[in-house]
């Protein structure tokens, strides 16, 4: 049974041997840990993710980072250079392709070869494992900003080894957040263990004087996720990362659409992550937040997409996020061209820069939402702790099994899949069907009330159709769905 317990060095090194044999690129001199530490120590501050986040937090500014990844190395280098220079990105990603995410390195290899042949990327991301330490280091050397792997990989152990040895100083993901929204039937115990390994690696580096940033994946399915659910999972993954020795964590949240609820979610997330880390005995973790621009279905029209991007940037900046992940005007169609990607960045940057001296004023409404989210999160975390008899790793596994935690629209069969969200009349995300979610009657009553208010105003029933309308709404230029007839 998985436990939230720091992995011993011996166990870690034992597993490591196996991991590095999973694909030929695991065999590289830089994957000697001493050598890797030496390489990572040579990373200057301005190319260190963790450092740049600390600096931004101090200045109170919001950094921007795109998603980007293509199959071929040279094309990927060119892409990131372009996003840095023309797009003015502060932080760089490498979005990993879906075959690599499922450890299908042979498929990825075929994808690279086919892409070379056709002269265009047939993969939806950068196959970092196949390109190996040499390719990834070449990339690192070709840019001036910190690099992070962004993926959705249930078992990212080999990937993580390769990117860190290549001086990429951040890694996105977590045992829950890179399983439930990204897989169908991979055991949660397994993925938590895989990610304990990934975190243990970062902890190892920390013990040897290298600071690496870790980012639990906040938006989950990106589709009407109530803030309490994503915040709870971010907090759980932060605690599990801290146990393995991670000291620099960025917790994430995907834009919901209502400005007040979104700012409240960001504030609650930061405060409660710090609170729970201390409560569980991790005193020296540096916490920042990342806001994801709208993660659901996008409007097709490019001006509308850019408007949504600018609106998201306004919320992130006024809400004080340390980092924001940007989208593009191509979102509803497919992987963006580098031009479209840079355009999304420029749109975002104008706002993060222009609004940097403004914050969302404190208000009763904001306070109320912050407290509401906090109460809900407290209730969910308590349920996890109880389910695990004090151990949150065990608790997480059991909570999912029982549906005490439940992620809307997740593909995983481990997820209860009974919860249904819908918006209230102001567009705040509330819960329509709770399934077995660990909510008190009082908490449920609040959500019911809010949705009744909407049903009344819109003169319609509370039903799955409401959820469906809300899913389509933003791509149609609305926030609160209306029944079409």
């Amino acid at each position, binding site marked *: 049974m998985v436990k939230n317990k720091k992995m011993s060095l011996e166990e870690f090194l034992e597993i490591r041997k196996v991991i590095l044999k999973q694909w030929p690129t695991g065999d590289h001199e830089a994957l000697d840990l001493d050598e890797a530490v030496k390489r990572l120590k040579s990373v200057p501050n301005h190319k260190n993710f963790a450092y740049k986040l600390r600096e931004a937090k101090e200045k109170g500014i919001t950094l921007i980072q795109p998603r980007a990844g293509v199959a071929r190395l040279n094309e990927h280098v060119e892409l990131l250079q372009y996003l840095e220079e023309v797009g003015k990105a502060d932080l760089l990603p490498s979005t990993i392709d*879906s*075959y690599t*995410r*499922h450890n*299908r390195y042979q*498929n990825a290899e*075929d*994808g690279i070869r*086919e892409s070379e042949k056709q002269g*265009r*990327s*047939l*993969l*939806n991301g950068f196959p970092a494992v196949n390109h190996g330490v040499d390719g990834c280091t070449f990339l690192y050397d070709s840019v001036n900003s910190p690099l992070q792997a962004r993926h*959705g990989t249930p078992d990212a152990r080999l990937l993580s080894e390769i990117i860190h040895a290549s001086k990429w100083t951040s890694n996105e993901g977590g045992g829950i957040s890179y399983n439930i*929204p*990204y*897989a*169908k039937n991979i055991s949660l115990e397994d993925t938590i263990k895989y990610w304990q390994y990934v975190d243990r690696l970062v902890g190892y580096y920390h013990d040897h004087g290298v600071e690496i940033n870790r980012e639990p994946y906040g938006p989950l*399915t990106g*589709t009407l996720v109530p803030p309490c659910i994503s915040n709870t999972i971010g907090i759980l993954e932060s605690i599990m990362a801290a146990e393995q020795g991670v000291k620099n964590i960025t917790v994430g949240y995907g834009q919901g659409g209502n400005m007040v609820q979104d700012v409240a979610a960001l504030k609650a997330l930061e405060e409660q992550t710090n609170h729970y880390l201390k409560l569980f005995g991790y005193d020296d973790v540096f916490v920042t937040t990342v806001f994801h621009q709208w993660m*659901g*279905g996008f409007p*097709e029209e490019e001006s509308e997409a850019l408007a949504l991007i600018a609106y998201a940037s306004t919320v992130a900046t006024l809400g004080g996020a340390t980092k924001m992940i940007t989208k593009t005007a*191509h979102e*509803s*169609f*497919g*992987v*963006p*061209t580098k031009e*479209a990607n840079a355009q999304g960045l420029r749109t975002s940057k104008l706002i993060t820069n222009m609004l940097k001296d403004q914050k969302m004023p404190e208000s009763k409404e904001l306070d109320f939402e912050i407290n509401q989210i906090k109460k809900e999160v407290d209730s969910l975390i308590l349920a996890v702790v109880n389910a695990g008899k004090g151990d949150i790793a065990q608790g997480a596994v059991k909570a999912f099994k029982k549906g005490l935690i439940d992620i809307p*629209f*997740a*593909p995983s069969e481990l997820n209860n899949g009974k919860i249904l969200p819908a918006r209230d009349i102001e567009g705040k995300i509330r819960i329509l069907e709770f399934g077995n979610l660990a909510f008190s009657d009082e908490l449920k009553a609040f959500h019911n009330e809010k949705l009744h208010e909407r049903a009344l105003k819109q003169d319609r029933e509370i039903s*799955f159709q409401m959820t*469906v309308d809300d*899913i*389509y709404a933003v791509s149609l230029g609305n926030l609160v769905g209306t029944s079409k007839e």
Partner: protein
Amino acid sequence: MKTVVIGVIGADVHAVGNKIIDYVLSENGYNVVNIGVLSTQEDFINAAIETDAKAILVSSLYGHGEMDVRFMKEKCDEAGLGHVKLYVGGNIVVGKQDVSEVEKRFKKMGFDRVYPPGVKIEDALTDLKEDIGI
């Protein structure tokens, strides 16, 4: 009641559209067999055989669709499903590409109907009625 098989092909986990397709087709009088995300060509074919389906609706969102559906029509034919209508929709290629070009490529691969991004399942109902009835 006509049966249709739906699912998301390849290493693709985009589940939202799939759940909505299930709901909308059911509401509109079809018997929906949903094999879910991360499905292989074989999963689709087996389900179609078992349930005597009249159409297979392949979803692909994540960009690898073009690779994932190769030779699917041929396999359907081999399995004796030559008469079953083969649809594909979602974000079936990588990037924003010319719609009619993409349609051509997939039709050449044997798909009866090809839907570009932005076509919601509601918009495809008339085609489905026309092709297989209700």
